[in-house]
Structure formats: structure tokens, C-alpha cells
């Protein structure tokens, strides 16, 4: 039973265009959402997060949108760059985690930005 779902295993985008990565969740207790980026042979690195009290968080080229009623979030990257090519994981954590963020991850989306 996947509580966090990333239904697109891969996405290809032209350099300079917008990349949109999607994520759906089923657990209504999740209140904090994160995106991690992973290069081959490296561990995931934190990219951006959003609390359930917000519907948008922006950091440079990266923006995360949260639609609580639809239990859906998305990551927008604009403009996309070849160095953005990586696997992107959506992750979520419930209120009960407190200060320790035990995360539930999606299966990831491989983003390829074509030069």
C-alpha cells in the first residue's frame, strides 16, 4: 500500500523549459512534504519542502505547490538545466513525527533535461 505515489517513472524536458514533477499521497495525517534529488551513486539531497499550512513555496528556480484537498503536490523547475537531470523523490511525514522527520518516500521520477 503506497502512501506516496509518483506515477511517472521518467520525464524528459528541453533545456530552458519548465519541468513539472507530480506526487500524490493517501495519508491525511501527512502535514509536511519534501522533495529530494538523487544523482547516481549518491545519497538523496534535500531540495525544497512545504508545510500543509501553505499552498506554495518557492526557492529560486524551484517551486512546490500543495493541493491538500486533492492530496497532490508538484515540483516546478523553471528554467530547466542539464544539471537538473536526476531522480526526484517526493516524501511526506505526519504530524506525529515531531522534530524527527521519519519520511515516507515515493518511487521517484527520473528527470532528463536535454541540451
Amino acid at each position, binding site marked *: 500500500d503506497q502512501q506516496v505515489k509518483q506515477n511517472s517513472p521518467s520525464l524528459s524536458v528541453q533545456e530552458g523549459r519548465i519541468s513539472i514533477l507530480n506526487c500524490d499521497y493517501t495519508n491525511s495525517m501527512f502535514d509536511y512534504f519534501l522533495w529530494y534529488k538523487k544523482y547516481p*551513486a549518491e*545519497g538523496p*539531497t534535500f531540495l525544497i519542502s512545504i508545510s500543509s499550512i501553505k499552498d506554495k513555496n518557492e526557492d529560486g528556480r524551484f517551486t512546490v505547490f500543495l493541493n491538500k484537498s486533492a492530496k497532490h503536490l508538484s515540483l516546478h523547475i523553471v528554467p530547466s538545466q542539464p544539471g537538473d537531470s536526476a531522480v526526484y*523523490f517526493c516524501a511526506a511525514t505526519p504530524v506525529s513525527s515531531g522534530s*524527527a*522527520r521519519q*519520511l515516507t518516500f*515515493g*518511487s521517484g521520477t527520473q528527470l532528463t533535461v536535454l541540451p
Partner: protein
Amino acid sequence: GAGVSQSPRYKVAKRGQDVALRCDPISGHVSLFWYQQALGQGPEFLTYFQNEAQLDKSGLPSDRFFAERPEGSVSTLKIQRTQQEDSAVYLCASSLVGELFFGEGSRLTVL
């Protein structure tokens, strides 16, 4: 070191062998997590420590899996009598508050 360090990076074991995977968290990080990542999947939670106390081990798949963090710093994940289905990347992460910082992982292949 500056980041989370894991060793070995790669381990090949014959089925039935015991393995031990080590994690050095970021200095001062109270929380330490172990995750298992199978090929083509996202990381899945195994266990969580706060200092030396193992507060949650609900994700450990069987009693062949054992984790410890005796002094509240370095942690070891031990897998006894390895099986082929144990083949995965084992990720360690540490945290002070908020986001997790991951190591590069230990890739275990069981033949």
C-alpha cells in the same frame, strides 16, 4: 566529517552470510535513520534512533535485521543469514531538527 559517511560502499555476500553496515552521522545529530532502497523504488524506512535509544524499529523486515547505536553516534545495521531479497542500497540519514541528511549508501548484493 562534514557529511554522513557509510561503509562499505559496496558489499557482495553469499546467501547465508552475515553482514554489518556502518554509519557515521553528522557530528551532533541526535536522530539517525536507516532506510532500504530496492532497485527502482524509493527509500523505505527501517529503523530510527534518538541518541542511543532505538525508538522505532517497525520497518525492519525480519528478525534477521538488527541495528544498534550504543554510544549515540556511530550506528551499525547487521543482517544475519542474508537472503537474495536483502539485495538493496541501505541508506543512513541523520538529523538535528527538520530535514534528513543522507549518506551515499551501502549497496548490498546477495548471491
